[in-house]
């Protein structure tokens, strides 16, 4: 499924990752997530298992998490994290086990902590 968003009956917005979240489509990814968070209290990403992710993808996720926390929205993901995300987190030293002040002092379940 290409990078896109759809609204569920319960108001939740699901964003499908498509096959890449890299610099080539970072602007589009960022826009889709921003619009989703403006439209719904509850936004989740569904990753393709083989999705490619780079630093820009990580930055959009972190930025979205900060934005959601600020306005008390939910920003999360469904299903297991894709291998590429685990790889880019490990390689760039982005693991976070501690609480994050930008995420209302909750644990970071994106980059290391558990959901």
């Amino acid at each position, binding site marked *: 499924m290409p990078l896109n968003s759809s609204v569920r009956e319960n108001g939740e917005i699901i964003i499908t990752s498509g096959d890449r979240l890299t610099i080539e489509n970072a*602007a589009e990814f960022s826009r889709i997530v921003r619009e989703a968070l403006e439209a719904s209290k509850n936004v989740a990403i569904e990753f393709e298992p083989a999705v490619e992710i780079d630093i*820009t993808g990580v*930055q959009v996720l972190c930025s979205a998490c*900060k*934005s959601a926390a600020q306005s008390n929205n939910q920003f999360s993901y469904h*299903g297991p994290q894709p291998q590429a995300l685990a790889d880019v987190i490990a390689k760039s*030293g982005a693991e*976070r086990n*501690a609480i994050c002040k930008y995420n209302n002092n909750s644990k970071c379940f994106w980059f290391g902590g558990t959901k």
Partner: protein
Amino acid sequence: MEEAIATYREEAGELLAELETSLLDLEETPDDNDLINRVFRAMHTIKGSGAMFGFDEIASFTHEVETVFDMVRNGKMTVTKRLLDLTLKSRDHISYLLSCPLGEAVDRSEGDEIIAGLRQLVPQLELPQKGSSEIPAINLPGLSEDELANESTWRIRFRPAPNILMCGTNPISLINELRDLGTAHVVAQFDEIPQLNELVPENCYIYWDIILTTTRGEDAIKDVFIFVEDDCDIKIELIDRSGLIDREQGYKKLGDILVERGDLSPVEMQKVLMLQKRFGELLVEQGIVSPEKVQSALVEQQHVKGVRKERSEAPPLEAAASIRVPAERLDQLINLVGEMVTVQAHLSQVSMAGGDATFIAISEEVERLTNELRDTALNIRMLPIGSTFSKFKRLVRDLSQELGKQIEMETFGAETELDKTVIEKLNDPLVHIIRNCIDHGIEMPEARRAAGKAPHGTVYLGAEHSGDSVLVTIRDDGGGLDRDRIRAKAVERGLLSATADVPDKEIYAQIFAPGFSTAEKVTSVSGRGVGMDVVKRGIDSLRGSIGVDSIRGSGTTITLKIPLTLAIIDSLLVKIGKDHFVLPLASVEECVELTRDDIKNAHGRSLANVRGAIIPYIPLREHFKITDQRPEIEQIVIADIHGTKVGFVVDHVVGEHQTVIKSLGKMYRDVKGVSGATILGDGTVALILDMGVLLQAVEKLEKDIM
């Protein structure tokens, strides 16, 4: 390369012809910038390429002429008759140099005269003394470094320019280069990532703190950043050195590190110190320093402490590097660690539910320590697989003699480490496979000669790491599997349909079916049809998988993929009704929803449409006869089982889970589809599902019905 040199001669010839025309034209219109540029470019190309192909004389001579024309180009000199005369002479001289065989001495007198003449035209010009060919492009690793330098630890803060990603630089590859220099701890800092409405998605906001211990000097670190050093903020500081006699094992206090880094002022440090609590927590609590910065400083502290400890503990060479421990003590240790992981999960759950910050902090510390303890304990049980390899050498020797064959055995990857119990359980399957290679695989010497092969055959046995698994490969250069005969036999026994289009790999896999043998005569070694199914069972019990590949006439390769350890696995925790189940994460691909409508639309068949692909699923609720209320929306966990995609329907997917495997009691040993059990954080038991066996059971059931 010879070809490229010939092309260069040709190309330079053309450029010289063009140069001559341009120079003659320039004589008539000395101000024509286009012509001046053309001359410059011709010289430039002749020089640049010349140096690359070893025409050093041409390179250094042309460099002088080019330099002069660069000045003309930049308006610092004008075109005169004398300049044109000299340049035309240069053209002739280059032409002469070009005709000289590469590497032989040349007559320089003409060239020196021309250069002297050119220098007179620009007396103020500082002509470089040496030819261009001596300037190296970039320092190759290992060439210019003083390898004997002492091991030092460096603190690096790498703050990329915002546009670094847009210019094609991948900061992760730079960090990987640093990792290659030694031992590195990397912490990415996220605090500058803005909210979405201010985010420029292609900009780089993340910056990095890296602690690196290396024997290579500061230059090696700087070389990593050579392309970005002008526009990125890179701080490299020496923080520890093995050469310094340093008796104390510890390292600087956290506060001192933060002050050194500029993340904290000394005044603030004093203020916080007065409060007499754990320093890092206080800094975060008071909002003076962000948790990420503290984490990063803690990483540095740990890193240097670790390095110093290693140094002080490095044993004198003659001292024993290892000790012997009875195996059961290790097993006991693993069991205890398993219990610990379980209790820790419970602790985390309770602490999170309670919401007490101090309690959560302690629980997190326990979690970190438990993880480290687990990894260390599992590591202790790792043994190199090579110890079993040597046994097989003997087996090959004896068997081949018995059968009158000439067979050698070659091994690789003997140093690959695997859990002790896994190695033990691998023994039987490997014996069977190797026996088969020798008996059925490798032909008699005469037959090999007739096929144009060396009379002696070879069996290769090797191991290598692949992610969290080890691949054990057994390869022979024998006759290969007889695809058609295996197929015929499988059809005869009702294992395969006669007409179905089956991929080769699936046909070859039939050799692992119980009682399967295509051998015409039963030998003392094999052929009775027992054996290969033992392999299958053995590998299954290790939660591994088998792949077979074969080329008729040139040999067979069997690949066993075995998980590194049996004690603790990563898994997906799911729920059906009130019961929890655990699915090994290694084969899980994704989770999708299954609604009542989906079920209705499938007209009673257990098939789901996942992005256009039809995937069969097994409703576990029915399979386990769980009767309570079915939820409105169920979840399908899609798994890849030996290349087949199958869904398992559950009520909820709870999430990833560290599963400590407990074996089931004797009473339950024969239960199909359940490979073990685990204890969850709250004390309840969850069954570990064997997805491969479940799939087989359901397939068999369907066949029986049909």
